């Protein structure tokens, strides 16, 4: 519980001290980005998970998609999209959205095979997510279960950024206003029909570029600290 009051870097060091050699130790060894790092120099990974539900204790990760942002440019050659095999049945309600059926899931790899790769790609980077608590909590739960250590990473949450923007302008927030696909048109971003972890990760990355450009006329000169979620 105390961890909540420590900053991310202290959390990382604390966790590192308790973690033995392996994937998790490698991940936690990478120092976090300095808050005054210029955006153009920060390595950002936009990530999205599809899950079978909202509770990490009961539900599983179905897939992840990610894309890297370097120099405030989305690099589509860095995209990754993995489907994860789960034992439980996939609820129809969620399958309708992410299009991952039991069969497709069964063709994927188990989480313990996929997670090390994901952690390697995130190590030392900033994680960019829309509504970060899902990704944070699910990966954290997986890390604790598989490696007995917490998932600590500096995070930018575009939902939080949007919320701050609304509050700064004294706008009342309506239900749905903060959803990714309702925020995008405000920045003249195109409509996407497909919903999978990868297209949502790209959609989030685009939204972040737009928000950063709104904050600083030359977004490459802003600092990453302006956007981090503490």
């Amino acid at each position: 519980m105390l961890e909540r009051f420590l900053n991310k870097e202290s959390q990382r060091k604390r966790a590192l001290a308790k973690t033995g050699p392996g994937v998790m130790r490698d991940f936690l060894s990478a120092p976090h980005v300095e808050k005054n790092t210029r955006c153009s120099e920060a390595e950002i990974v936009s990530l999205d998970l599809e899950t079978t539900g909202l509770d990490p204790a009961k539900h599983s990760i179905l897939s992840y998609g990610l894309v890297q942002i370097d120099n405030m440019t989305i690099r589509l050659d860095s995209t990754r999209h993995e489907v994860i095999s789960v034992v439980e049945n996939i609820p129809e309600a969620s399958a309708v959205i992410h299009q991952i059926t039991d069969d497709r899931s069964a063709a994927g790899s188990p989480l313990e095979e996929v997670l090390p790769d994901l952690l390697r790609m995130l190590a030392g980077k900033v994680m960019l997510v829309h509504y970060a608590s899902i990704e944070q909590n699910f990966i954290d739960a997986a890390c604790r279960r598989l490696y007995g250590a917490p998932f600590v990473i500096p995070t930018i949450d575009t939902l939080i950024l949007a919320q701050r923007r609304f509050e700064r302008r004294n706008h009342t927030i309506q239900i749905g206003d903060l959803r990714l696909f309702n925020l995008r048109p405000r920045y003249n971003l195109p409509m996407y029909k497909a919903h999978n972890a990868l297209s949502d990760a790209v959609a989030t990355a685009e939204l972040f570029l737009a928000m950063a450009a709104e904050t600083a006329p030359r977004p490459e000169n802003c600092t990453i600290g302006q956007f981090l979620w503490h």
Partner: protein
Amino acid sequence: MEIELVEIRDFLAQRPPFDALPEEALNQLPKTLDIRYLRRESAFPPADTDDSFIYLVRSGAIELRGKNGKLIEKLGEGDIYPVPCQLVDLEQGHNGTAVEDTLLYLLPCNKLGELRKTSATFDQHFSESMRERLKRAVGGTRATSSNNAAHMSVEVHELLKKPAVFINVNCSIQQAAQRMTENNVSSVMIRDGDKLAGIITDRDLRKRCIAEGLSSDQPARLIMSTSLESIPHNALMIHALLLMTRLHVHHLPVLKDGKIFGMLTASDLARQQNTNSAFIATDIRKSNTIEDLARACKRLPDLQLHLSNASASALHIGESVSCITDSVTRRLIEMAEVKLGAPPVPYVWVAGGSQARREQTSHSDQDNALIISNKLKPEHDTYFAALANFVTDGLNACGYVYCPGKAMASNPKWRQPLRVWCEYFNGWIDKPDPMALMLSSIFFDLGPVYGDDNLFEALQGSILAKTKNNGIFIAYMASNALQHRPPLGFFRTFVLIHDGKHDDTFDIKHRGIVPITDIARVLALAEGLPATNTTDRLRAAMQTPSLSEEMGENLEDALEFIAILRMNHQAEQIRNGVPPDNYLPPNSLSELERTHLKDAFKVIQSMQETLESRYQLGRFG
């Protein structure tokens, strides 16, 4: 295997040139892109990237301005900015700005290079010069709209049912008649060595031999027609049809390498022709009343539609429709002469504007005038007024509505002896006033339709002698020619106008065709060229210092492409029973047509700029 980034792939798959890529290359393409976002008012291309990408606008808008701040182009969703990767057509001095929040896809030049190897069409888009693109566009428009082009592209020799029937030049009239009877033909060619000396038809036997009481022992050459038009054996059928309609002949000698090859007859054409274009011509000849003529003319839109379906070039469609108008006019004049008697002095009926330029479409107004012999006496005007009224009323009844500016022979001002016409033109040329400039598109494009061609030629000779190298007059004409500017291009569903304003519809006549017609007229007058057809004028001007060969060809292709689009638009309206017009909604144009139109606009702009600096038109503001 599922395609990653399917949204991006689908976006690319809809637009040229990416739509030309093979499936596999298209599926891999999104992975090679970078994405950037420009807040509105940011510089474009982004300052911190090296110049090694082409940019594709995914959403938002970019304005490109020249060094002088003039808007050059506006890019919207789906538009490409290829300059950083392009070696040809490099346009220097762009200042770009995002005028809306803009999402950009960046494709590295080296990846572009790899893609160009996967598709010839894709490659051409980036490698071709504007000139080559336009040339291909003209070819493509014709190829893609060819439904039943086959019979129009039949060559003349394929139509000939019988071998050539001929006699030697010193045979008798009787031998000619015998040869015709043996072969069951209505005409015979007269051969002098290898060369064609003349032809004799049934009609010649009747009119020039029997009616005249000439002995059939006399040499056949006495009754043959010698002023002969002929057609090469490999000419297209449509050319033959047009030529025969224009000349009012039913027989046309066919030559191969200058030697007699055969005789094309109207029935050869009729057999091949499953539609009405030949019949319209025949019906017009046979009409004895204005009602008959008006009925025949009702089929004119069908003729245009048919020719358009048959993928005739815009040049040929314009020529055929103008031909028909000539025939209608001639028939009306013949009727008038029957009614009023022979003219007291010689005259020539001349057409102006699009009819003279051979560029009519089926819904043109009438523009005409009478040039009368200088022997005209005041009391003769009753005759010519009656003739002019009969013909202009007749034309109106046939669908060629009265000229709103009253540029018609029925207007006494435009029914004058040659001497007065020369004075008119001298006045317009010496003191170009707004009235003269307004009339220029009608009276500086004149063609004889009926009567004494010498009168027309005398006037034309006098006009061209005065305009040639007449700097001040040509400068006025050039300045007038620049009144109609092509748009810059298209932006979303709008036409983008010079000052950055938008139009909802594209007036293809005034913003596409008229600018080129005006340029060609200026060149023809400046060089003293007698041609009136715009393409002919351009071709003739290319032989002079006024027009480079490259610019001439570009303008010719631009005109053909624009004119074909206009024909297709009107054909669609005729098919739907809507009166044809010149207004194209921009969203009815395909991405490819927009691209080609943009090229065509650039050609026109560039020639207009040339005229502007050649005649230092700043002064005429």
